[in-house]
């Protein structure tokens, strides 16, 4: 039984592309009768020809009772009015919905294509930017070279300064040593002189100086009394 569901033809036999579908369907008048029928009768019967034909046909069928009016006629009128109302009311919406489904399908494919193009364009722009960046590389290297030279210079100056400070330190030490030595010699000399002077003061001299001081004091006191 499963063989019955196997499809006989899975592809059309020729691989040539299908002819495109026409844009609009065939023209119909009153939703049923093709326009070509009216055009066919127009040369002989004019504009009202097909309508006269229709009316005559209906009246013939009714009058000869080839079509009998029975309960199905009323039922037919009802169902036909429902169908015509539905078609008139929802026809355009359904057609727009079908068109929207197709449009979405096309839009999806177009979106894929556009996205591919956009991504490639972005890639091209990025590449151009990279190339422009590469051009500026020389300036970068110059700046780097300048930086390095400045660093070297600063380092050299620093070391020069250090050398100067070290030399100054040693020279200052020598100077301080000399100053200290002279100071010590001076102090020592003063001390030696003072010591010798103090030693040379004999007791005799000491008594004479004390007596002189007492005489001076008396004279001064006399002078003070007199002043008062």
């Amino acid at each position: 039984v499963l063989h019955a569901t196997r499809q006989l033809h899975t592809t059309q036999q020729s691989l040539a592309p299908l002819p495109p579908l026409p844009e609009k369907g065939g023209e119909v008048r009153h939703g049923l009768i093709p326009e070509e029928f009216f055009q066919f009768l127009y040369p002989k019967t004019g504009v009202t020809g097909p309508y006269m034909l229709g009316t005559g046909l209906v009246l013939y069928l009714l009058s000869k009772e080839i079509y009998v009016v029975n309960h199905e006629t009323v039922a037919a009128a009802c169902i036909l009015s429902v169908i015509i109302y539905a078609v008139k009311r929802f026809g355009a919406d359904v057609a727009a919905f079908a068109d929207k489904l197709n449009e979405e399908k096309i839009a999806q494919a177009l979106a894929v294509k556009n996205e591919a193009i956009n991504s490639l364009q972005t890639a091209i722009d990025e590449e151009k930017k990279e190339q422009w960046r590469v051009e500026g590389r020389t300036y970068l290297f110059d700046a780097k070279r300048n930086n390095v030279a400045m660093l070297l210079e600063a380092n050299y100056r620093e070391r020069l300064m250090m050398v100067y400070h070290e030399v100054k330190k040693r020279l200052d030490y020598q100077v301080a040593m000399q100053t200290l030595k002279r100071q010590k010699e001076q102090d020592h000399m003063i001390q030696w002189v003072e010591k010798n002077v103090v030693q040379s003061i004999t007791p005799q001299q000491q008594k004479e100086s004390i007596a002189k001081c007492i005489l001076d004091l008396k004279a001064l006191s006399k002078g003070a009394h007199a002043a008062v």
Partner: protein
Amino acid sequence: MNLSFFDQFTTPSLLGIPLILISTLFPTLLFPSSNNRWIPNRYLTLQLWLIHTTTKQLMIPLDKKGHKWALILTSLMALLLTINLLGLLPYTFTPTTQLSMNMALAFPLWLATLLTGLRNQPSTSLGHLLPEGTPTLLIPALILIETTSLLIRPLALGVRLTANLTAGHLLIQLISTASTALLPIMPPVSLLTTTILLLLTILEVAVAMIQAYVFVLLLSLYLQENI
């Protein structure tokens, strides 16, 4: 021709040639097969969209094994829908008003679901006969009731479709007869009856579509239980 109320339901024949086969299979002519275009015409687009949507709806509750039933369920639904809707046109024969055809559709498909269930997972299938959480005393009675309900399913499926459509068609015929008969006697009442007939026609259109859907839905539910 003078119609009786049975003429709508007799099997159609032309000069002694039975037309039942072509009248049953005529709806298949209304579904064009997909041609190889990427963007088809509106009719084909709508048909593809409709079939796609209904198949997705039917197959979502089923697991992978149930997807083997997609073709038969969707084609069954399309066939029933078209047959029912075409039957509303005047002077048409509706095959689904015949109990024989509906039982021929319902019984084998229901039996297929049952046998699939009994073959692949017998204990689970039998377990469906007892709903969860029933009091212990009620278990024997409930099993009998559930078995009866299980065995009555094909009958219910077939008779549901037949009865709905036959009743609808019969009602349309009776009310239109009343309308026709009242027209020379009391035209306003005839007008009222015609209004009722209009509403009934709209109902019948809805019923036609719903019954087709319900048939297939119930089958898919029986399948869900058993697959």
